[in-house]
Each structure stands twice: as structure tokens, then as C-alpha cells.
């Protein structure tokens, strides 16, 4: 069982995730149409590029935009969730030991107590994100079971990881559950709303090009949202 999910399943989920992201990103940009979108992407590549980078950069910065500043609570839980959710899976010592064994490559690693802290932060923020969904009428009205499923898929690897980390009950069970839930997450990325992990950059780049070219960029106005 362990061999299967760390062997075939690992390669399958990683492969599907990476290939899926690549294909969908290519399709996204190929699907942009200057005449339908009404943005002359190709006529002003430099302005478009600058607009795209600016748009992505500003929104990656906590409180970097009016939107973030307007909603401080959401901004804090959003960044706590996403910082942990990106850093821990990539830079955890145990993940990199596993990766090295599999591929001979490994990434920079973070201290285990930092990883613990960030993981708790992810779980705590996820709970707050769910509570926010339930509490605020403007969020509740749009929320469907699918939104909760996405949150569940995203947070399950962190919960199971903590259970294994603190060896609550059967360590092997939690380890298997952790690896499986991680693989489900990888498989879900290209096919669900989780595609935002890469389409966020694509979509922001598009609007950044729109502003950088058509909506004032060529006039020298850099909108600081």
C-alpha cells in the first residue's frame, strides 16, 4: 500500500498536476482574443508586461492594494492561510527528504518549529475562513457545497500532517491519509476551482495588461489597486 501510494500514485498525481497546470496556462493565454477582450495585447507587449507584473505583485503583497486594505480581517486570514499553504508543502524537511529519495533533488528547507507554526496557522485560518463564509450574508449567499469541498481538499493534508506529526493514535494510518490527501489535492488542482493556484497569475496578468494598455497605462497612469 505504502509503496503504491508513494510510488505510482505519487508520480501520477504530480505528473497530472504539473502537466495540467502547464496545459491550462497555455490554453488560457491562447484563448485570449484582442478583439473580443478588447485589449491590444500584442501591439504593446512592454506596457502589457509591466501592467501584468504590477497587477500580480500588488495583489501578492499583504495590504498592497485598496482591496486588501478595505478588508483587514479577510486579508490577515487569507495571507496566513496561503503563506502556510504554499511554504510548508514545498519546504518542509520531511517533504524534501522524500523528494530527494524520489528524484535526487531537494529544495531549501525550513525549520520544523516554523513549519509546525505555519501548519497550525493554515488550519486555524481555514476555520476562520469557513466561519466567515457562514457569518457574512454577502459570502453565504454565493457559498455552495463545492466551496466547502475545495476548502476540505485544501486543508485535509495539513490536518492529517499534524496528526502524523504529533503521532495521535496510529502513526501509519495518518501518514497514509496525509500522503493520499496530498495526492488528491494535487489531482484536484488542474480540474477544480483550485486551478486558481496558477490561473490567479493568468487572470491577474490579463487585467494588468488591460489596465497597462487600454485603461490608462499608455497614458502613463499606473493604477495602484
Amino acid at each position, binding site marked *: 500500500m505504502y509503496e503504491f501510494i508513494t510510488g505510482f500514485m505519487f508520480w501520477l498525481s504530480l505528473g497530472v498536476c504539473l502537466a495540467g497546470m502547464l496545459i491550462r496556462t497555455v490554453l488560457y493565454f491562447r484563448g485570449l482574443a484582442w478583439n473580443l477582450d478588447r485589449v491590444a495585447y500584442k501591439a504593446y507587449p512592454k506596457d502589457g508586461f509591466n501592467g501584468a507584473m504590477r497587477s500580480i505583485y500588488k495583489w501578492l503583497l499583504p495590504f498592497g492594494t485598496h482591496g486588501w486594505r478595505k478588508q483587514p480581517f479577510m486579508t490577515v486570514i487569507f495571507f496566513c492561510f496561503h503563506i502556510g499553504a504554499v511554504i510548508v508543502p514545498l519546504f518542509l524537511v520531511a517533504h524534501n527528504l522524500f523528494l530527494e529519495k524520489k528524484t535526487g533533488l531537494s529544495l531549501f528547507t525550513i525549520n520544523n518549529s516554523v513549519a509546525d507554526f505555519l501548519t497550525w496557522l493554515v488550519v486555524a485560518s481555514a476555520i476562520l475562513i469557513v466561519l466567515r463564509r457562514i457569518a457574512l450574508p454577502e459570502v453565504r449567499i454565493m457559498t455552495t457545497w463545492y466551496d466547502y469541498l475545495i476548502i476540505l481538499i485544501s486543508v485535509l493534508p495539513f490536518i492529517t500532517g499534524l496528526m502524523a506529526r504529533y503521532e495521535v493514535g496510529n502513526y501509519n494510518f495518518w501518514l497514509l491519509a496525509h500522503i493520499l490527501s496530498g495526492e488528491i489535492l494535487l489531482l484536484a488542482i488542474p480540474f477544480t476551482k483550485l486551478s486558481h493556484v496558477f490561473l490567479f497569475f493568468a487572470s491577474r496578468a490579463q487585467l*494588468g495588461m488591460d489596465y497597462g494598455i487600454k485603461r490608462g497605462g499608455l497614458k502613463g497612469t499606473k493604477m495602484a489597486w
Partner: protein
Amino acid sequence: MPEGIFCNKKPVETEEELTALLGDTSGTQYYKEMKELDVDSKLLWTTIQNTCKSRIRTWLEICAHCGMCADSCFLYLVNDRDPKQVPAYKIQSTLGEIVKRKGKVDNEFMRMAMETAWAKCTCCNRCGMYCPHGIDMGIMFGYLRGLLYQQGFVPWEMKIGAGMHRVYRAQMDVSEEEFVETFQWMVEEYEDDYVGLTVPVDVENADIMYTVNAREVKHYPEDLAEAAILFHAAGENWTIPSKGWELTSLAMFAGDWAACKMQVESVYEAMERLKPKRMIGTECGHAHRATVVEGPYWAGRKDGRPPVESIHYIEWLAEALREGKLKIDPSKRIKQPVTLQDSCNYVRNHGLRETAREIVSYIVEPGYFRDMSPRKEHNFCCGGGGGFNGIGLFRPQRNKGLITKRDQIIATGAELVLAPCHNCWDAIRDLEEEYEIGIKWSFLKPLVISMLELPDHMKPEE
């Protein structure tokens, strides 16, 4: 009954059809027929497949339903934070559903979508600035309007407006002769006070080709004379085209993309015929957006620009004041609390956030200008944009929408509102009528003329 006599999928193409449709007062029969109008689901789905590409599809897919756009929408705020006014909800429950159901929606759904597209969104594009994913719901509502128009589910006035452009290449029934004659007549009226005032018609290779809003010709002809006075005082070499003089596009509000193309091409043809150095449009927001910002794309211009450099009136005015072509008598500057309405269509959607403020620095006595909050590209819609002002059926919703601007203006303590945009000007006039807060509002032209130091050659002999 599938297709009505007035309410149907066919655009208005002739003067007779226009007259008939106008004869149906307030669209009484039109809206009655709309209740029976069939939805051509096949056409709807084919259109979506051909025109809804990765940008909008991705927007619909990755919307996280986070609700961060809620506070950005003035219609959400002013309607007691009704969750049904959250931009993401509005677009997901209309366009999102149509895409999800592959166009298989019924008449009732389409009428709900029509109300959402024209009475719950002014396409001000503010929400797009507040979405972490960069989802611009205003753009999607513009797209949805196109789908609804194609199916005949469009407010009566919008169908008429688009028809006007198709028949007259103007938003109102103003012919080319009427335009030129009205301009000439107004100039003659002012000739005694402003010596040498003329209106050069169809002059080739002029520095400026001036275009207007048909409403000025029909309802505010003094605006035409004011434009002539300022160009003359600034010593500009300018002209008006007898054909292709209409800057506006109600077709854009209606989602009639074919009419948008016809309209804007008439202006571009004038540019190509007269070869001016620049085109300057009147103080109108949506008109600038239609002809200068969106128009090039409707006309299939790959560089996204009109045939000649085209600027908004405030850009010319700021330049003329900066360069001293127009001189202001400092003693006549505005000395009362004054604020400025930033038009969504050229500030948020074309970056002109400092231009009107530069003009303010020349025409307002220091210490009297009060900015609105929020302002510049974050300013709220006047409450009447995107066609909202003109739709009788949705007048109660529009009047409610005006409250945001009313409260913004009251908070500044201003007695005068500068509104260099026809839609904003109308909305502010209507909010004063509706709520009586004791303000005045004005375009820039008459104010600048009132404080202008006339060049000697224009002064009448005593």
C-alpha cells in the same frame, strides 16, 4: 407568441420602425410582448461558444465566492447590503447560469437577467479593482448585455437608442444638416459678444476635429457655442465634421455591438476624410470610452487606437490652461466650496485621474476645492451610468442608486459639483431634483468662459 411587433430579436433599422417603437409610450406594449418572447437557446449557446473565451470563462470558474467585491459596489451599499446585490452573485446567477445551462434558460430567467444587467450594474468596473483574482464583473455585464440584446431582452429605451445610432449615426434623431445648422445658429447667437466667432465645417488638415453629444444639439445647444468660444479664444485651428460628429454610443449601453461598430466607424471615416491632427470630444464620459477606448476594437483596429490621436475635452482644456492659450482672470475664480465628480468612463477606464484636478488648480481659488471620498479611480459611479439614467422601467432603482453620490457630495460640504460628463451631470441634476440638497452642478465650459480673459480681438467694441 414568439416575436412581438415591438419586442423581438430584430434591431431597429429604419426611421419608420423607430417612430413606431417611440409611439409605444413608455414601452407598455413592448414590455407586455417581452413576457411572451421566446429564447433562442441554440443561438444563445452558439454565440457563447464563439465569443466567450478563456478570459470570461476563467473568471466564472475561479471566482472564489469570497464576497470581497461586495463593498466595492455602490448598488450593494445603497440597497442595505442586500446579498443579492453582491457583484459576484449578480454575475454568477445570470451569465454564470446561462453558461452552466448551455443557453437553456427560459423567458422569466432572461427578464431577471435583463433587470440584473441594466438595473443592478452600471458597468462602472469598480468591482474589478477589488477582486483578488482580477475578475472584472463590469466587463462581464457588458458581455451579458450583448447576449440579452441579441435575444431581444433589452430595455425599451436601449433598443431605441441603439436604433437611433443605426438610423442616424447619432443617439437622437439629429440629421447631419441639423447638426451643422444648429452649430452655426448658436455661433451666430454669440457672435455679438465674441467677435469673430465662427464654426469651421469640414476643414481638412485642421489641428482639431471636434465631436459632440447629440443631446447638446437637441437640448443644450449653448454648449456648442461655448466650445466654439473656447477654441476661438485659445487660437485653435479647429473644425467640425458634417458627418461623423457624434461621439456617443447608446449602442454600447444596449449591447448592440454591430451598431457600436457602425457608429464609431462614422467618426473614424470623418477622421480619415478630414485628416485632423487630433480629435477632441466633448465633456462626456461614455462617449469618450465608446469612441476612443472601446471603439478601435469594434472597428477592428489592431493597435487599439482611433485613426488619429483622440483626447477628452478635459485633456485639451488642461493643456490650453497650462500653456497659457486660455487665460483665467484670477479674481473670477470659483470662491465657493466645490467638488469634482470623477467619471468612471475616463478616469477608472482611461486613467485620466489627475487631468480634471489640474484644471481645478487653475479655476478654483486655493482652499475651496473639496475632494470626494473615495475619489479618482476609486470614485463611485454617479448612480446613473451605463444607461441607468435613461431607463424608465428602472427609475425607482436608479433613484435609490443616486443616494451614494448624494451622500458623497454632502460629505464634502461643496455647493458646486464639477461634472465634466453628460451622464454624471444628468445624475447629479436628478439627485438634486429628487433629494434637494441645495447644490449646483456644471460642465467646465461655462465656468471657464465666465472667468476667461478674452483676447482683445474677441472683445466687442464698446
